[in-house]
């Protein structure tokens, strides 16, 4: 029973984890991208379509990476070069992703595609309990196990990561020491969008194997909150994502066991927590304390002086 709950937490947390990881990169560079929901939907559709046509789920992931990259390039152009308000542009990206995927996805509803299935890993999968919980998943979950520590190491322990953080903290200073603020922001907004789109593709290629309009059902918005939850740290993002996935799956299992507890109440928990966290960080002082990138949401221009 406990095994099943932890397994489900990882399964349900993985799409959130990819999106959260992606957004951490974007926000670390100082760009808030609220379009995660749209990016996930586009990734879910593109991944499914490519997998449907080529019968290869991995090519599907490649397709998701591509569409995520293209859409975030548009977003980067709008917010970094055009310096459009990031909140407005993010909402627009969400609507664009939902609209486009709904429209072009109509022909693919009810179709089947090649999907990821659980892979047995010799030795690891045989460990009692842990083997079942951690190593009875599909390749995209394993990939996320690798990506999380790698991202953490990259952001906090490498020179490139330092440049990334510098741009998110103080773009002006970064610029004066020769770091290209624009290049870095473009790079990580696009990388973030690509990862987010893979989170969407996880829903249509691994979690379930189908495409249905609006199938992300709000997960992109949860990921936006999870970034703050995790204080822009990939390791904490893993915990936060699994926690959210765990609560959502736990409440279903509590019902299945026949325990009389309101499903509405349990279902509400993650969302209530989200609201609490979002209200907490709405104050400038609090954001500083938990380590928000100082230049988040502030467009950068060389000419302007403050």
């Amino acid at each position: 029973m406990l095994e099943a709950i932890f397994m489900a937490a990882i399964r349900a947390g993985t799409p959130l984890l990819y999106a959260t990881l992606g957004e951490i990169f974007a926000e670390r560079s100082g760009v808030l991208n609220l379009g995660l929901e749209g990016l996930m939907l586009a990734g879910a559709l593109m991944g499914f379509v490519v997998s449907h046509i080529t019968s290869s789920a991995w090519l599907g992931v490649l397709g998701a990476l591509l569409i995520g990259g293209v859409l975030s390039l548009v977003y980067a152009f709008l917010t970094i070069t055009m310096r459009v308000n990031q909140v407005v542009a993010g909402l627009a990206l969400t609507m664009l992703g939902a609209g486009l995927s709904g429209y072009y996805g109509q022909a693919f509803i009810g179709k089947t595609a090649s999907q990821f299935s659980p892979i047995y890993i010799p030795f690891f999968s045989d460990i009692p309990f842990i083997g079942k919980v951690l190593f009875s998943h599909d390749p995209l979950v394993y990939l996320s196990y690798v990506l999380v520590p790698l991202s953490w190491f990259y952001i906090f322990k490498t020179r490139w990561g330092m440049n990334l953080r510098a741009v998110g903290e103080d773009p002006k200073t970064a610029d004066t020491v020769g770091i290209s603020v624009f290049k870095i922001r473009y790079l990580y907004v696009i990388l973030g969008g690509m990862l987010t789109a893979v989170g969407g593709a996880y829903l249509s290629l691994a979690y379930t194997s189908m495409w249905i309009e609006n199938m992300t059902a709000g997960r992109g918005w949860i990921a936006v909150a999870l970034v703050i939850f995790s204080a822009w740290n990939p390791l904490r993002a893993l915990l936060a994502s699994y926690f959210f996935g765990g609560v959502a799956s736990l409440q279903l299992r509590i019902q299945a066991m026949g325990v009389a507890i309101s499903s509405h109440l349990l279902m509400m928990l993650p969302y209530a927590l989200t609201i609490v966290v979002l209200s907490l960080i709405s104050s400038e002082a609090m954001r500083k304390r938990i380590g928000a990138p100082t230049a988040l949401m502030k467009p950068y221009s060389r000419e302007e002086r403050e």
Partner: protein
Amino acid sequence: MRRAVWLSILVLTLIACSIGGFSFAAQGKLKVGFVYVGPVGDAGWTYAHDQGRKYIETKFPNVETVYLESVPEGAESARAIEHLIAMGCKVIFTTSYGFMDSTIEVAKKYPDVVFMHCSGYKRAKNVGTYFGRMYEARFLSGIVAGMMTKSNKIGYVAAHPIPEVIRGINAFTLGVRKVNPKATVHVVWSNTWYDPATEKEAALSLIEAGCDVIAQHQDSPAPQQAAQEKGVYSIGYNSDMSAFAPKAHLTAPVWNWGIIYEYVIKSVLDGTWQSEDIWWGMNKGVVGLAPFGPMVSEEVKKEVEKYKELIVSGKFHPFGGPIVDQEGKIRVPEGKVATDKELLEMSYFVDGVVGKIPKK
């Protein structure tokens, strides 16, 4: 300045990309319009309505049909309805509960147009309502589940706690218990109509709890996929979902809306149409079961056939007394059947259901 030009080019391109096409057919003699809440390919609710639309196109050569899909519920749907009228529709079917108020509102402005609203209760001189007695088919699918289960635990992935869903769960359970009094039906609420990942997880949680047949109420076939993966049986809903889970899918209670549509169109063409409340069942063929999967035995099919005939002939009612609720209270006494009002307002689980209805 240059920035502004760039921006407007971009915005225009994006708008051009995202404008979806409305689908419509060519002009005809009697034009009939359909307003759908979902995409026609959802394999669920809207798909079933669209099958009905296609059916009347083949039945009446003088009728042309038009539809608008993925129309949001609420005030916005009024514009969709007016759009159909502007295109010359004389009969309009609005196929979701949430279109109720806008249907009534638009109907006031166009007294010459016939409106039919699905699953609502508000009527007017030119607005009728229609629905199907899905509980009859649910009862039959319960018989299949009750005879196919080995663990005597059957899972039901429930959508939202409204009377329609509760009625379905109860009818299903009564069917299960008719043939297998030892079996129980375990309910998990997903609180969604359409979230494949959550619905699949809900089905998995029921399978983990020992259920070996999974039934559902949502429009997505995700619970079917969960059953297939875990090697248990499943019962679909809305339309034949066997394509999504050929090894698991036993059958599905399905809609045949074409029968109601044919009746309405015929009465409009004859000039005999008047506003009424249509609530038809299996006797008219509006609801039924999808073809059985190969794993369903002859014995099961015979039992289903027996009850089908009894229901169709009116000799048996799934909600015929005594109906006892979870607490042991008698809700419908022996010798009586539940009235339509009782059916439409159902807010209790019958004996045999394991689970609670969330309080508002």
